[in-house]
């Protein structure tokens, strides 16, 4: 069973690397969906099946579909010269070195922990729901308000600007404009 964890982790890391280094936006989104599915496998085998289902439904099913719709609306298939120049290895060197340094310090900090091994015990959705609606009830309400604000903000920002708000106002404007020359 331990092999499943490592295989899924390798798939997630490789597909995340391919997702951030791909030129085509649709291909990168498909690699990102693959990475999310691999992470969902890891959630499932480490004893949180509810979170695995949420990962597939919400992340891979809702958020990535939003991304794909936007990429389809923008119609950006092939990238420009600028982006391909940014994708040369010379640009990648410094951020990659910084990330590797951070990862080395993180590994050192983790390897100084006491090794504790424990068998997996499944934590089901019922316990999570009880925790959410007793301990974190106010956080649930705040996140509901934040989702409402997100919906309203996305609608307001994504709306196309119309020239005239109402047809009566349009007639009025025309009449005024035609009256001025006469």
């Amino acid at each position, binding site marked *: 069973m331990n092999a499943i964890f490592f295989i899924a982790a390798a798939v997630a890391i490789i597909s995340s690397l391919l997702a*951030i280094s791909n030129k085509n936006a649709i291909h990168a989104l498909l690699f*990102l969906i693959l990475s999310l599915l691999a992470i969902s496998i890891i959630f499932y085998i480490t004893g*949180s099946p509810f979170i695995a289902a949420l990962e597939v439904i*919400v992340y891979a099913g809702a958020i990535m579909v939003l991304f794909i719709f936007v990429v389809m609306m*923008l119609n950006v298939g092939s990238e420009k010269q600028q982006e391909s120049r940014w994708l040369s290895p010379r640009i990648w060197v410094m951020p990659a070195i910084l990330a590797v340094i951070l990862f080395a310090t993180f*590994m050192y900090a983790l390897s100084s922990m006491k090794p504790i091994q424990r068998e*997996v015990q499944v934590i089901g959705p019922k316990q999570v729901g009880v*925790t959410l609606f007793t301990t974190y009830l106010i956080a649930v309400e705040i996140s509901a308000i934040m989702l409402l604000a997100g919906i309203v*903000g996305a609608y307001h920002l994504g709306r196309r600007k119309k020239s005239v708000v109402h047809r009566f106002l349009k007639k009025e404007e025309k009449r005024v404009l035609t009256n001025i020359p006469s």
Partner: protein
Amino acid sequence: MISIPLEIQLMFAGMLFLIGLTGLLVRRNVIFMLMSIEIMLNSAGLAFVMAGTHWMKTDGQAMFIFILTVSAAEVSVGLALILQAFHHYKTLDADAMSKLKDKKTIQL
């Protein structure tokens, strides 16, 4: 059953976070930057769930649900902003959206 030590699971989460950070630093396409932020949020949630299952608590999974909420709201608003910026600038390049930058300090 499976018995992976917590350090390896946290190392995996940290590796995913650093992949997202590298993508955010390197890419100049706004959609790819948003995708990198998604990877980073997801790896933070992964670390929460791993630690929560390690100590037999449900708090980690509750935190993952909150991270999911934040990420959904952030993606909806961010994609609407990307649409508006694309209509305004006709490109997705983040360097093109530097109207606030001082002209004198551009030449390095």
